[in-house]
């Protein structure tokens, strides 16, 4: 590229992360540090039943014995777990209605493009807004309730629906699963709870919007979605955080359970603060455990993720295909620009007969971004006629970034059908020149080419969010050509 193009690009790189503002609000923030006391404090704050406190403590004790994993293909500074605050909540958060919500908070969500006023909301989307450690509002609850759908914060669910929570909590991801899931089990604060009763098709899209605001706090949300027999739901989560010089830890756990003939579609648009584009200072460590259990016959769980934010992303939304004829899907677009790193992919565990899984992963690396696709497909002995199709494509923009692919395949039943396709390509000079020659500038051309590359995945997102994802991609790619 010539001089003037570089100048334009340099300027674009310096553009701020759009969601980097801090909300000035009085918060109750627990002093940094983790101990059994911390856990007692969180549990008390949330007025949790005693069994839940016991469950947390059990996880905490286990966590103390565990070691932080180091096999992932990312590098980051050591995390000092005693230097993190495990609870932060805006004061005045016990509201009876949305009208009582602090205007500062409403304003924050408006700025993020998520109006919490039901009148102004996008049609047919209910939102749970989680701010630091607490859920501050959940919209359309009454309307959903009339259909029997429960959509509330996890904390409320633990108090109001303890028998359901007790039955399913940790049933897909046991507290012993991995280091970060175990930590989450001990100190999780808030997240969403969704219960779709038998035979109900959830009448609207459900979504949770996660926002980290306080400095030095970690976010440890916990989400649980249960779809009973013959029900279906589409759920979306979005995430942003202010720009800060220090790294912040986000270690979430998401568990999904689909019973016979149920369908859960879970979409993520992750845009946590990626850190300073030049120095790599700050940014979110996004270490998340997500897993769905297709426990019933003909059930279906579909993960769609668009990962553009975070300094370091480390996550593998997975499916356990236990029910016969169940279907697991994973559609992913991950973008690493500047100094971002991601090690992401999925696991598909086939247990039931005639189970089917599809993996479509699109990785985009720009700047000095490093990205790894890591996927495992496991066909157990019992899984007669299992099928998997995997496609992992990577695209490189510039010559300072990297893409790596680690597919693991473990087949223990001879009747399985496996297909795997992979490709890595550089964004072509010929494609860029072709667009330029038609009058399209380089930034727009890159967006267009990358969006074309991601199309199969964007097509899986709910319509409103597909548009958002396209836009987000453009913003995240700004300055990537140089």
């Amino acid at each position, binding site marked *: 590229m010539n001089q003037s193009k570089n100048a334009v690009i340099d300027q674009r790189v310096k553009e701020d992360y759009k969601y980097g503002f801090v909300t000035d609000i009085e918060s109750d923030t627990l002093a940094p540090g983790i101990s059994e006391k911390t856990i007692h404090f969180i549990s008390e704050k949330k007025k949790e039943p005693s069994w839940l406190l016991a469950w947390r403590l059990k996880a905490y004790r286990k966590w103390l014995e565990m070691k932080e994993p180091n096999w992932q293909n990312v590098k980051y500074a050591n995390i000092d777990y005693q230097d993190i605050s495990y609870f932060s909540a805006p004061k005045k958060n016990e509201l009876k209605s949305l009208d009582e919500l602090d205007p500062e908070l409403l304003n924050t969500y408006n700025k993020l493009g998520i109006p919490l006023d039901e009148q102004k909301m996008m049609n047919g989307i209910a939102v749970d807004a989680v701010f630091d450690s607490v859920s501050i509002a959940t919209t359309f609850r009454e309307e959903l309730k009339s259909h029997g759908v429960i959509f509330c914060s996890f904390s409320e669910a633990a108090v109001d629906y303890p028998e359901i929570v007790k039955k399913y909590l940790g049933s897909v991801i046991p507290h012993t699963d991995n280091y970060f899931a175990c930590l989450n089990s001990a100190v999780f604060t808030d997240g969403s709870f969704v219960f779709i009763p038998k035979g109900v098709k959830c009448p609207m899209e459900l979504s949770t919007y996660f926002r980290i605001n306080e400095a030095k706090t970690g976010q440890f949300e916990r989400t649980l979605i249960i779809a009973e027999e013959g029900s279906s739901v589409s759920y979306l989560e979005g995430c942003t955080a202010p720009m800060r010089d220090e790294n912040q830890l986000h270690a979430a756990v998401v568990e999904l359970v689909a019973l016979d003939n149920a369908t859960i579609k879970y979409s993520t648009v992750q845009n946590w603060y990626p850190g300073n584009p030049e120095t790599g200072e700050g940014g979110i460590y996004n270490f998340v455990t997500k897993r769905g259990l297709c426990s019933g016959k003909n059930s279906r769980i579909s993960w769609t993720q668009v990962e553009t934010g975070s300094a370091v992303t480390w996550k593998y939304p997975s499916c356990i295909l236990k029910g016969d004829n169940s279907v697991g899907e994973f559609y992913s677009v991950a973008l690493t620009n500047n100094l971002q790193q991601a090690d992401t992919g999925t696991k598909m565990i086939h247990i039931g007969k005639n189970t089917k899984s599809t993996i479509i992963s699109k990785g985009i690396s720009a700047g000095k971004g490093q990205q790894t696709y890591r996927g495992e497909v496991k066909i157990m002995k019992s899984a007669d006629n299992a099928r998997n199709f995997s496609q992992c494509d990577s695209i490189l923009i510039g010559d300072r970034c990297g893409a790596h692919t680690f597919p693991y395949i473990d087949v223990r039943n001879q009747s399985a059908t496996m297909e795997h396709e992979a490709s890595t390509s550089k964004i072509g000079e010929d494609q860029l*020149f072709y667009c330029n*020659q*038609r*009058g*399209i500038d380089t930034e727009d051309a890159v967006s*267009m080419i990358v969006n074309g590359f991601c199309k199969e995945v964007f097509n899986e997102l709910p319509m409103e969010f597909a548009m958002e994802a396209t836009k987000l991609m453009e913003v995240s790619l700004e300055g990537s050509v140089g």
Partner: protein
Amino acid sequence: MLEVKNLHVEVEGKQILNGIDLNVKPGEMHAIMGLNGSGKSTLSNAITGRENYSVTKGDIIYKNESIVEMEPNERALAGIFMSFQYPTVIPGVNNTYFLRAAVNAKRKYNKQKEYDAASFLKFVKSKLKEVEMDSKYLKRAVNEGFSGGEKKRNEMLQLLCLEPELAIMDETDSGLDIDALKIISKGINNYKNKDRSFLVITHYQRLLKYIEPDVVHVLIDGKIIKSGGKELALELEEKGYSWLES
């Protein structure tokens, strides 16, 4: 319209063009003929501003201004179009979407109202007929799965939509069957008028059976060694390039 003066071009340190002079006036059609490796494509890439084609000496003047320092997209917006010898595939990008982005970039540049999806579709369908293309091509990804002839017709479609003043046809006749060749030639002839110029780059004089260049230049080793009227092309066909080499 286009004046090329003593143009020297280097590609990756290798001198390819050694002093080209051209003067294409509005409404004129010039043909550049030459063997493979003579520098024909380098000339078109240099005029359109492709990366790595560095002008080391001389100048390219378009509409009385030097364009050597201009970005490729700026040159395109100013009215220079190239029909590619090998049009690029862009997977996942819808052909109509691409075409609309290009046309709207140009309309924005000309301070005209940009097309919305519906009005653009109407616009592009009127152009489709001229190149005898089926509307199903609009729904496909850019050049994906297109045959050689379809790609060239798609280039012609883009030309008709973008309405350039200077169109460079880079080896448009290569890989075309006779029907497609006729369609493209007809497109060129219909498009040409007193304000629009063509630079037709070709290896053979096959295309020149259907279109009438005002001037024919013969390019050998990065230099124009002979210029003349249409009859020069016929002479070349008869005697071969070696006739001019010494």
